[in-house]
């Protein structure tokens, strides 16, 4: 009686619903990789599946003036963040490092300027710009003038093979 397409949607929906716990968690005390990572030595972004964390990252992106160099992902003085080219690495740890310790060619070091969990939030938002996070975690349009398709409507752009050891 229930069509195959219908069943697929049902399965997707149930899966999405079950993901709700993590997606909707509001971790007010902040998460760091230390209290989120399950594998020792590997840093995962603790907000990767958390819509609230990504949303906070989006607010901080504007508040801390990342738009000054990166615009809203399209880049300007700084490189574009919504494309598939990651100069200094696209994995969680690399993006964290980029924000915390800065990079050559003008990326300032924010590690002493903002807290660790705020860096993770910003990193999560940056990853969301290329649509790399789950669909229900991606932010939608902002209450600003429209600058681009909202993140949750963008085509996902997986990172190209990036030169990993570019920070020596």
């Amino acid at each position, binding site marked *: *009686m*229930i*069509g195959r*397409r*219908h069943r697929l*949607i*049902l399965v*997707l*929906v149930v899966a*999405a*619903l*079950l993901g*709700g*716990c993590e*997606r*909707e*968690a*509001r971790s*007010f005390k902040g998460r760091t990789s230390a209290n989120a990572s399950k594998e020792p030595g590997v840093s995962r972004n603790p907000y990767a599946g958390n*819509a*609230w964390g*990504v*949303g906070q990252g*989006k*607010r901080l992106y504007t508040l801390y003036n990342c738009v000054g160099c990166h615009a809203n992902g399209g880049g300007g003085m700084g490189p574009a963040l919504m494309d598939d080219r990651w100069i200094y690495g696209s994995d969680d740890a690399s993006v964290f490092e980029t924000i915390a310790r800065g990079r050559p060619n003008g990326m300032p070091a924010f590690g002493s300027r903002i807290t660790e969990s705020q860096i993770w939030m910003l990193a999560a938002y940056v990853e969301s710009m290329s649509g790399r996070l789950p*669909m*229900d*975690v991606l*932010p*939608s*349009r*902002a*209450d*600003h*003038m*429209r600058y681009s*398709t*909202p993140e*949750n*409507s963008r085509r996902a752009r997986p990172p190209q093979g990036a030169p990993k050891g570019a920070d020596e």
Partner: protein
Amino acid sequence: MMPPLTFDPRRSGIHGRARGNGPAADGTAAERAALEKTWRVPEGILGWFSVVDHRTIGRRYLVTALGFFLIAGILAVLMRLQLAVPDNQLIGPDRYNQIFTVHGTIMMFLFAVPVMEAMGIYLVPLMVGARNIAFPRLNTFSYFVYLFGGLMLLIVLLLNSAPDVGWFSYPPLAGPDYTPGKRADFWAQLITFTEVAALAVAVEIVATVFKMRAPGMTLDRIPLFVWAMLVTAFMIIFAMPAVVTASSFLLMDRLVGTHFYNPAEGGDALLYQHLFWFFGHPEVYIIFVPALGMVSSIVTTFTGRPIVGYTAMVLSLVATGFLGFGLWVHHMFATGLPQLGLTYFTAASMTIAIPSGIQIFCWIASIWRGTPRFTPPMLFVLGFIAIFVLGGLTGVTLASVPFNLQVHDTYYVVAHFHYVLLGGAVFPLVGGIHYWFPKITGRLMDEGLARLSFWLLFIGFNITFFPMHQLGLMGMPRRVYTYPAASGWGPLNLLSTLGAGLLAIGGLLFVWNLARSVRSGAVAGDDPWGGDTLEWGTSSPPPVYNFLHPPVVEGPNALWDRSADAPVVTGLRTDCREVLITDVVDATPNNRYEFPEPSIWPFLAAVATSAMFVGSIFTAWAVPIGIVPIAIAVTGWFWPKRKEAAA
């Protein structure tokens, strides 16, 4: 050849007051058996999903709505526990926001409107002398859509994904920037579920009342409860589209990046408020007007006389329905709209007190004139008058713009709307449940328990909500998860919490009485109260075909005005579900119509619709993809039955 329709005074399956509650006069046993078979309610698992019988669906709506009421009541108790003392740490802000939002959402969308619809679905066909409600398969569809929407909300409540931005969910707080994730989307889509269900029921009620009344039930002989449900149905039809628009725009802003509520791109946060409250104000009348109808039924029966001022009552109901659409800005007085417009809405908001006042005066006059019997339903009606009039008067104070600007969005408003909703709708509803319980189940509720639950509810209600007026005047805003000790709000909050405990006990006692009496209540006859409307003229519970022969109505109090040799309609076919369709104004028979058989397709259509709704929370593709199963199910639903050779 079809047997001709006749008006036969000799063959009556109903009995009126004039002749007492004797056993049914002689309709042939064969005729009864044939009707039983034709109109039977299907059994078994598949049968449970295929039922199109209005009494079954009405009972299901009622039980489901009461279940939601209990859940929302538990959430309310949690809120009161958190607010009992200042700086309480019992519940944090995130969880508290979800709790108060879901409490309000369940109460307004999953309890209050559906439970009134439930009473309408069950009683309106009986009161107008029809065999079933119009569009019976749509009725089944609407129940399952309602059920699935409610289940969705309960599931997300357990998954930390419940909406947390208030039951009216204003953007930009509910917009994509400030409520990330899917919480507000579940709220917005719940609106769609419940409004589709409500619109379906509204359409059925209008069609039933206009076109399926028993012959002789002219417009001025329609029972007041039926008038109330008719007015409610029209209000639903005009009001619900506004909220579906508001919530759909919100969903689109959140999912696909439209800018309806984004001021930076030419949208407006106030647009939402206007759209929502254009629905939101009639919504409270949608909840309240059926209760007015119930009060009229109860007062008529337990004073033993027709209501004083029937015409005034009907016109008041209609006026309330119309005026209710002209008040919505009184929810927005603080937003800085121009002064002249605000003054108009003050005048309109105060004016609506007049039709309600007329109704109160008519009821008091009816009580004055008749001989009141203090049965539990009557007690609840008296409690309604005491509580609702107070709530209505605080409403008059709220209608005044300057005063409103002080008490808007404080606990004064919380007190006001609980007085008018709990007092004005729930008390009559509980009284109505006590009143019609014997008709629905064939048994009486326990009278001692009923009285005890009334007093607990009445006293508990007042202790809970009266102090909130004072709290609002002392400056306590709504939707706060805690408050400082220095505010001085502690003692009254504690008092309110204690009252809530009493109220909860009263409510549980009522539910216990209900559950227990279904199995072991005293057997009620066909007409334990001596009622005046047609449902008391058939057995308790009614047979699956409601009336052996549709009666011909001779006065506004159908059973009391029924003469000893009043005619009934004979000749409707018993081998198919044939019903009598009559004229809108004077209910003369127009034609016969064959109603559809039970079918699984409405349930399947509801499943497909629900899947599309839930899917569209996550991806816009769910809409074009999800339309296909719906189209298939609707095709199955309307597939014509092969016509049998004419007998």
